[in-house]
């Protein structure tokens, strides 16, 4: 493998495009080296344990009014030349691209949080020991999940003179404990592996699994709900991908209407990529910065890359992703700001008896305390969009549902299917409470996360029980 730095390789690619494509050829490239590792466990044993040390080059060229993109994993001189040659050749054979927005101009990128070197270079033993602590803390319950670390070192360059470099790290742990088919979950991500306590997470998952035992089936219908952060993360992801996506907005496939009070006043959504370790630039080299999408219930903005921004007569918000011409720009570090709306008590009423352990934090306890009759939902699963414009989504509960009566969790409930419009469920007057502390939840891909507190909603439409 080449010993050159990512910045050197990126510069070399841009120079190759200039040499092979002529002075008018426009090019942007991102070179990324990554060390990704994931230690996976099931039946309380590590059964899959993987790591990869990779390098990738992504290139987009615009020549003679035509655009093409390519990528490769070979960073030798021959490999880079081949990538440039085939991408230029592809562009020349393409039809004209009238929507080409031009390259990102030179701009300084913001400072990103420092990288924790211990996490960047974590050894498999360190991940295994956290798994061991999770398993031990769950006692005699069966456990499953993962502990992962990710380190990316990435350089951007384009032929307009923009160049940037950054590194990111992330550690995440996600595990369940199981009792007689009832599961409890604990899930976190952090900038430092040392911030993940396997024993704490294992104990939390075990307590929830114990509390989830012997569930009863409830009839479908509209229920008041308290969603824990894992469930709220699903709302944020779908709102981001389908609603605050500048391409879908331009296509009139999004519900978003900037300037309109579409959400409850308790809802403030901010995409804040550099509040945690992250790269300081997007796939087009535009500096990343915080973007408020919703403030006190009013939609303010959607995410843009250069192409959607040009169509909208706006500026890129730094949300370009690879493949974004097709999928659109995406906010991937969204935080629902906690506001402590609703019950004033930070302690709430403790849950006792068979359901003890269902509530794992004081935020959630405070929200539960205000519910006369409703459901506490830990996690959502397999959510799919029935209609993107109204953002009607179907999915199921997972990893624990409990019935709340008179402010107390009284018993476990079997999983339910729901069919609900996410923006409608969060609409004006629909949010009855919000926890104070946003908990960062990992996505399936490192670098993507959703931070949310627990959330109390007036109504959620459950359309099916466990038996259909």
């Amino acid at each position: 493998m080449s010993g050159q730095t990512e910045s050197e390789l990126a510069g070399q690619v841009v120079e190759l495009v200039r040499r092979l494509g002529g002075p008018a050829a426009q090019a942007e490239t991102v070179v990324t080296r990554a060390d990704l590792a994931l230690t996976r466990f099931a039946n309380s044993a590590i059964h899959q344990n993987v790591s990869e040390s990779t390098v990738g080059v992504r290139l987009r060229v615009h020549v003679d009014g035509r655009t093409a993109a390519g990528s490769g994993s070979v960073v030798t001189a021959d490999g880079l030349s081949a990538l440039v040659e085939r991408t230029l050749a592809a562009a020349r054979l393409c039809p004209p691209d009238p929507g080409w927005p031009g390259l990102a101009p030179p701009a300084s990128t913001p400072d990103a949080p420092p990288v924790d070197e211990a996490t960047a270079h974590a050894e498999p033993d360190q991940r295994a020991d956290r798994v061991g602590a999770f398993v031990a803390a769950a006692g005699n319950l069966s456990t499953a999940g993962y502990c992962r670390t990710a380190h990316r070192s990435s350089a951007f360059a384009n032929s307009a003179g923009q160049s940037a470099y950054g590194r990111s790290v992330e550690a995440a742990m996600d595990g369940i404990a199981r009792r007689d088919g009832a599961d409890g979950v604990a899930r976190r991500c952090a900038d430092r592996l040392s911030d993940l306590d396997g024993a704490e997470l294992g104990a939390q998952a075990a307590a929830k699994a114990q509390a989830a035992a012997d569930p009863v089936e409830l009839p479908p219908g509209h229920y008041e709900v308290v969603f824990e952060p894992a469930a709220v993360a699903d709302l944020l992801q779908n709102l981001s991908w389908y609603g605050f996506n500048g391409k879908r907005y331009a296509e009139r496939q999004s519900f978003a209407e900037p300037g309109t009070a579409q959400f409850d006043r308790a809802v403030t959504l901010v995409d804040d990529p550099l509040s945690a370790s992250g790269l300081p630039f997007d796939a087009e080299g535009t500096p990343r910065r915080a973007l408020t999408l919703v403030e006190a219930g009013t939609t303010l903005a959607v995410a843009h890359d250069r192409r959607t921004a040009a169509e909208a007569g706006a500026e890129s918000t730094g949300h370009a992703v690879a493949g974004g011409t097709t999928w659109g720009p995406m906010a991937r570090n969204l935080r629902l700001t906690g506001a402590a709306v609703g019950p004033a008590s930070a302690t709430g009423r403790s849950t006792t008896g068979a359901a003890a352990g269902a509530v794992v934090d004081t935020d959630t306890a405070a929200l539960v305390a205000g519910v006369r009759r409703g459901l506490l939902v830990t996690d959502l699963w397999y959510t799919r969009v029935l209609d993107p414009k109204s953002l009607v989504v179907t999915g199921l509960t997972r990893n624990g549902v409990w019935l709340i009566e008179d402010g107390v969790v009284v018993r476990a409930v079997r999983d339910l299917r729901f069919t609900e419009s996410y923006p409608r469920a969060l609409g004006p007057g629909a949010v009855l409470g919000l926890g104070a502390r946003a908990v960062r939840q990992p996505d399936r891909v490192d670098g993507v996360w959703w931070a949310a507190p627990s959330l109390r909603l007036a109504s959620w439409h459950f359309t099916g029980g466990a038996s259909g």
Partner: protein
Amino acid sequence: MTEFDAATAAVQAALDAGARYADARVMHRRYESMTARNGDVEELTQDESVGLGVRALVGASWGFHAVPDLSDAAACDAGRRATRTAMASARVPGPPVDLVPVQAVTASWASGCQIDPLGVPLSDKGDLLVDATRTMARHGADLAEGLYQIWDTAKWFVSSEGHRIDQRIRECGGGISATSIGDGETQRRSWPSYRGQYGTTGWELVESLDLAAHAAQIAEESRALLTAPPCPAGETDLILGGEQLALQIHESVGHAIELDRILGWEAAFAGTSWLDLAQLGSLRYGSELMNITIDPTIPGALGSFGFDDEGSPAVKRDAVRDGRWVGVLAGRDSAAMASLDYGGSVRADGWARLPMVRMTNVGLEPGPHTLEEIIAATDDGVLMDLNRSWSIDDKRLNFQFGCEVGWEIKKGRRGRMLRNPTYTGIGPLFWRSMDMLSGETVAWGTPNCGKGQPGQIGHTGHPAAPARFKNVRVGVSA
């Protein structure tokens, strides 16, 4: 240094470092995709990736490491790191690991291909999508989208048991979609399915789809759906088209019979299965019309190969015979743990991913009817086709699907179009209600099956034909 040399070096290094078994996969994959929208090419991407992944077994613990470098030094280092990772796994050990025997062979295999898809001029491929999307826009679609994808994968597999197998698998496919946007919702129609039909074939598959010929009709149907009556809510007889039934098979049978799920290996993410190995051979999964095979030997189907990524040869097996559950998708280690004698369904999504249990071609054998006979025999029901949304629980029991279009069936005739058709049910109850099945089978390809952590995208095939199901709940809405 050849690809086999690199794989051999990695395996030997893993053994030298203490592994009792090791295997390595070198993969070289080229990928090309083009999307078009409203008469313009939207995005053209060409990717090329080469690397090596090595898997090591130490005692009862696995380790895996991957690198994008085929030099001797890099391959050996990858082998050693895989072994070191396996030793770390032993800090939280599991039960003993065995591998069901597979004859070590030296072999080559290639999928069939009449027209090299990467050899077709980009301008021709672009013209195809541009023309089709232009036609759809002209016939009323607000969003007219077209897509093709091509994968050309060469792989070299070596194991410490003596396997030495190279394969070349070419896959491609494509499709078109028309979306019409109303005040509060959108309606979509696609051909031949959303994001297309795929197979282990050459460009001849895309040509056979005749995208341009269907562009006007789907655009007009998407527009008409905006004002069509909604699918009524209630229980009725449900006729599913073959494309939707393929996804029904994928979600409620294919995933359910994955042995790693049954054993709990996917419990925290993809989920488990409602199936219990103690009932293998006796459980009634569906009606007697239900005959599901696991068959990676089907020429041209998307889940076909010569050997899986553990070196097991492609073999056709029964999964469900006359409605009874009789087989699983398995790998060498999971099969041994379940006291079964076959693997053969393990694949990796590229060189950087661990091979794991994946669907191959899991589909229905043809039935005795035709779609027209099924419609004619239905007094009151709904016909639905082309998937729009899919959701199923972590045990693969409780599902809800949405389709692009429905048609009212009254007194044996197809009536008016219905919008927003959905249906929901419980897997085995649903399959037991299947009382008519067509023989008009198509091996549908699904190129986007997600599973595993880190995530892997699998390519699977699903032979399916239209079928009827009794007393199904339809018309679920928000």
